C-alpha cells in the first residue's frame, strides 16, 4: 500500500501544533521546523512530568505501603515503616514516565497508520514457507537437543516433559483454530471435548469387561498393550459426536450468546464427570490407566520390554521421548488435515461463513451442516489430545478440565492470530512455555532485589496477564494477523487483517 506523501508535514513538530490547516494534505510544503527549541522543551517537560508523577505516587503510596501493621509475638500490633519501598515505587514510576515521555508519548512522534499488511506481517509472510519446515525440524530435533544440552537422558526429563506439554497445547490450539479462527464460531467450552477424549480412553482402557473380552479372544495383556492405539480413534469420534451434539442447539446463536452456551456446555460436561460417580468415580478421578506402549511393546524392564527388544539399556525416559513423538505426530496430523481442509470446499465454506453467513446461504451453502462439520472436526482433534493427555498422565479427574483450560486454549488462538497456524503454534510456545519459564525466576530472590522470602512463581499469573495485555495492545489481531489465501492465480498475497472478519459466532 503506497501512502500519499503527506508525512513530511508533521503538525506536532511545529511550534504550535494546534494549527490544523498546515497539516492538511496538499497544503504547501513548509521548511522543516527547527528542532532544537522543541527538543529542549520536550526534555524539560518530560522531567517535570516525571518528577510530579513520582511525587504523586509517593504521596499516594505513603499511607498504603509506607506503614504496615505487624504482630510482634502475642503483644499488640506495632507499626513498621517502609518508606524505602515507597521511594523505590515512586522512583520506578518517575523513570518509566520519563522514558515513555521521551519515546512513545513524545509529542511529534510519527504515528504509523496501519494500512494493508504491516511490515511485520509481510516479513512473516516472506518467512512463512521456511517457517513451517523449520518449526517441524526443530520439533523433531528437540528431544535430542534436550538430551545433548542437559547431558543425559534423565536430566533431560524436565525439558522433554515441557516439550510434550507445549505440543499438547499447540495441538489443542490448532483444533480450536478450526472452530474459532476459520469458521468464526466463538467456543468457550472446548475443554469439554478434551475431557470427552480423555475419559473415553480412561474408561475404556480400565474397563474390566473390555479387558476380559480381548483377553478371551486375543490373549492376556492385549488390551493393556494396545488400548491407547485402539481407543485413540474412538476418543476422536466420540468427541466429534459430542461436537455435533453441542452444535445442534447453538446453530441459531451468534456472538456472545454462542459463547455463553458453549461455556455452559463445558461446565455441564465437567459437572457430569464429577457427579456421575458410578461411571466416572467422581472427583476422585480414574487412576491406574495403562501406560503407552510402543505399538504393543511395553516400556518396562522385562525381557519383553522395549529396551530389551531393541538392545537398549532400560530407561524410563524412553517412554517419555516416545510420548513426545506421539504428540508431535498428532499435532502434525491436525496441522496437515487443517491445511488440506482449507483448500477444500468445506474449508472455504467455513471461512466464507466467518465472512458473511447470509451470503453463504444465498450461494446454496448449508450453513447448518457447515457449522456442524467445523464443530465436529475441531472437537475430534480435542478428543485425540484428550486421549493423549490421559495416557501421558495416567490419571484423569474433572479438575483437569476446568474453564481455565478453555480460556488458555482460546487465548492461544486469539493471541496467535485467528486462522493462522504458525501464529497459534508461536502463541502456544509463548504462553505455555513462557509461563513455565516464569517459574525459573529465582534470581529475583537475590538480597538486593526482593530478598529470599520472595516467591517469584506466585507472580507468574500477574506477569502473564501483563504480557497478554501488552501483546494485544501491540498487535490487536494476534501475532500473525494477515490471512493467506487458499488458492491463487499468479501471486499469493496476504490479506490484511482489516479486511478479514472475526466472525459473529
Amino acid at each position, binding site marked *: 500500500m503506497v501512502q500519499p506523501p503527506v508525512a513530511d508535514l508533521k503538525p506536532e513538530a511545529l511550534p504550535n501544533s494546534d494549527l490544523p490547516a498546515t497539516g492538511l494534505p496538499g497544503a504547501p510544503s513548509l521548511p522543516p521546523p527547527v528542532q532544537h527549541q522543541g527538543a529542549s522543551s520536550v526534555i524539560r517537560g518530560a522531567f517535570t512530568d516525571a518528577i510530579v508523577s513520582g511525587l504523586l505516587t509517593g504521596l499516594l503510596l505513603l499511607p498504603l505501603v509506607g506503614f504496615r501493621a505487624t504482630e510482634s509475638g502475642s503483644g499488640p500490633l506495632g507499626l513498621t515503616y517502609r518508606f524505602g519501598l515507597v521511594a523505590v515505587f515512586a522512583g520506578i514510576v518517575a523513570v518509566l514516565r520519563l522514558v515513555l515521555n521521551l519515546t512513545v508519548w513524545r509529542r511529534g512522534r510519527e504515528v504509523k497508520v496501519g494500512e494493508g499488511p504491516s511490515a511485520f506481517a509481510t516479513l512473516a509472510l516472506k518467512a512463512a514457507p521456511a517457517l513451517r519446515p523449520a518449526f517441524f525440524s526443530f520439533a523433531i530435533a528437540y528431544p535430542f537437543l534436550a538430551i545433548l544440552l542437559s547431558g543425559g537422558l534423565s536430566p533431560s526429563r524436565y525439558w522433554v516433559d515441557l516439550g510434550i506439554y507445549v505440543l499438547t497445547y499447540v495441538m489443542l490450539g490448532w483444533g480450536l483454530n478450526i472452530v474459532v479462527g476459520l469458521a468464526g464460531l466463538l467456543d468457550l467450552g472446548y475443554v469439554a471435548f478434551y475431557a470427552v477424549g480423555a475419559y473415553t480412553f480412561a474408561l475404556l482402557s480400565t474397563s474390566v469387561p473390555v479387558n476380559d473380552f480381548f483377553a478371551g479372544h486375543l490373549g492376556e495383556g492385549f488390551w493393556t498393550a494396545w488400548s491407547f492405539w485402539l481407543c485413540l480413534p474412538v476418543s476422536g469420534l466420540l468427541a466429534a459426536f459430542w461436537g455435533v451434539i453441542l452444535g445442534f442447539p447453538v446453530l441459531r446463536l451468534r456472538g456472545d450468546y454462542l459463547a455463553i452456551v458453549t461455556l455452559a456446555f463445558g461446565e455441564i460436561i465437567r459437572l457430569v464427570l464429577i457427579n456421575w460417580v458410578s461411571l466416572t468415580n467422581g472427583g476422585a478421578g480414574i487412576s491406574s490407566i495403562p501406560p503407552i506402549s510402543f505399538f504393543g511393546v511395553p516400556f518396562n524392564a522385562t525381557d519383553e520390554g522395549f529396551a530389551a527388544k531393541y538392545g537398549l539399556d532400560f530407561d524410563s525416559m524412553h517412554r517419555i521421548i516416545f510420548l513426545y513423538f506421539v504428540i508431535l505426530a498428532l499435532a502434525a496430523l491436525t496441522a496437515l488435515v487443517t491445511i*488440506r*481442509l482449507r483448500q*477444500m*470446499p*468445506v474449508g*472455504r*465454506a467455513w*471461512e*466464507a461463513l*466467518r*465472512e*458473511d453467513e*447470509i*451470503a*453463504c*446461504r*444465498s*450461494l*446454496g*451453502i*448449508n*450453513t447448518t*451442516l*457447515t457449522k456442524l*462439520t467445523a464443530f465436529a472436526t475441531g472437537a475430534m482433534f480435542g478428543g485425540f489430545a484428550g486421549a493423549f493427555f490421559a495416557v501421558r498422565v495416567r490419571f484423569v479427574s474433572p479438575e483437569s478440565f476446568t474453564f481455565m483450560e478453555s480460556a488458555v486454549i482460546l487465548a492461544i488462538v486469539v493471541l496467535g492470530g485467528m486462522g493462522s497456524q504458525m501464529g497459534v503454534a508461536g502463541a502456544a510456545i509463548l504462553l505455555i512455555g513462557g509461563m513455565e519459564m516464569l517459574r525459573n525466576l529465582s534470581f529475583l530472590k537475590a538480597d538486593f532485589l526482593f530478598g529470599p522470602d520472595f516467591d517469584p512463581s506466585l507472580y507468574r499469573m500477574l506477569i502473564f496477564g501483563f504480557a497478554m495485555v501488552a501483546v494485544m495492545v501491540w498487535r490487536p489481531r494476534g501475532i500473525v494477523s494477515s*490471512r493467506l*489465501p*487458499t*488458492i*491463487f*492465480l*499468479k*501471486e*499469493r*498475497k496476504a*490479506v*490484511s487483517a482489516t*479486511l*478479514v*472478519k472475526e466472525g459473529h459466532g
Partner: protein
Amino acid sequence: MASLDPVAGAKTPILAVDHLSMRFGGLIAVNDVSFVAARGEVTAVIGPNGAGKTTVFNCITGFYKPSAGRLALFHGGAATPQELDAVTASGLSWGRTGAGSLYLLERLPDHKVASWARVARTFQNIRLFSGMTVLENLLVAQHMSLTSAGLLNPAALLNLPSWKRQQKGAMDKALYWLHQIGLMERADDPAGDLPYGDQRRLEIARAMCTNPVLLCLDEPAAGLNPRESAALNELLLSIRRDHDTSILLIEHDMSVVMEISDHVVVLEYGCKIADGTPQEVRTDPKVIASYLGVEEDEAAVVEAQVGA
C-alpha cells in the same frame, strides 16, 4: 390462473408469483402481489422506497417465509396448471413435470432455493466475502457443484486426480467469469479492496457461478456512475444472451430499467399497480402519479428524463 395471465401468455414463464402476501406483525409489506417472469427475459420490479420490492425478493429467495401465496419456479419449461395444482396439493416442495420440474420456493429453506431451485441473488448492500480473494469468492460460489460427492469427499481429502480435474473445472469457470467482468488482473486481491463498481460486478459473477436459472439482482446499479452503469447493462445483456439465465431485478435507475428490461412490474405500498412492457408502464397514469411524478408538468419532466 395467475401463472397463465394474458401478459405472459405467449411466453414460457420461469417464475410465477401467485397472491404473495407478507405480513410483519400488523404491517402488510406485500399485499396479494401476482406476476409472472418469463424465461430468457429481464423482469424489473420498480416502485417507491418502502413499496415492498426487497421483501418480494426475500420471499422469492427463501430468506423470508411468505405469510400467504405461492412462488412456483419452472425448470425446463412451464408446467401445466394441473401439474402445478397437483404439486401444490401434494405438500411437497417440488415435483417433476412434463417439461422438466417445478419448485415451490415458499416451501424451501434459503440455501435450497439456491442449490436445488437454482435461484441466485445479490444484495442491496454488497455482501462479498471481503477477507477472501476475488478468486476465492468465485470458488466458494461453486460449493454445491464441488461437494456433489459429499462435504468430506475422500478424493478431495487425498487430492486424487479425479478431484484435481473437478477443481480445474471450477477454476476455469471462475476465470471465465473473471474475464467477463474484467477483473482478471485483480484475481488475487482481497474482494474488500476492490472499488465499489467492481464489487457490484463481482457479486453478480459470484451469483452466476452457482449456475442459476433465475438471477435476482437487488439494485445492481445503486451507487454506480454512468460509465459503470453502462458496463453493468452490457454485462446483464450478455448474461441474458449467452446463458440460460433469466433475470429479475429491482432498480431505481430508470435508464437501466428502460434499457434492458423486457417486462416491468410496479409496486406501491405492497400492492402491484402496473405490469407490462417498459413503454406501457411508462405511460401508465397510476405509475406516473405514484412513482414517476405527481403533477402533470412534473410528470412531463420525468418522462423526458427517462427518454419518452
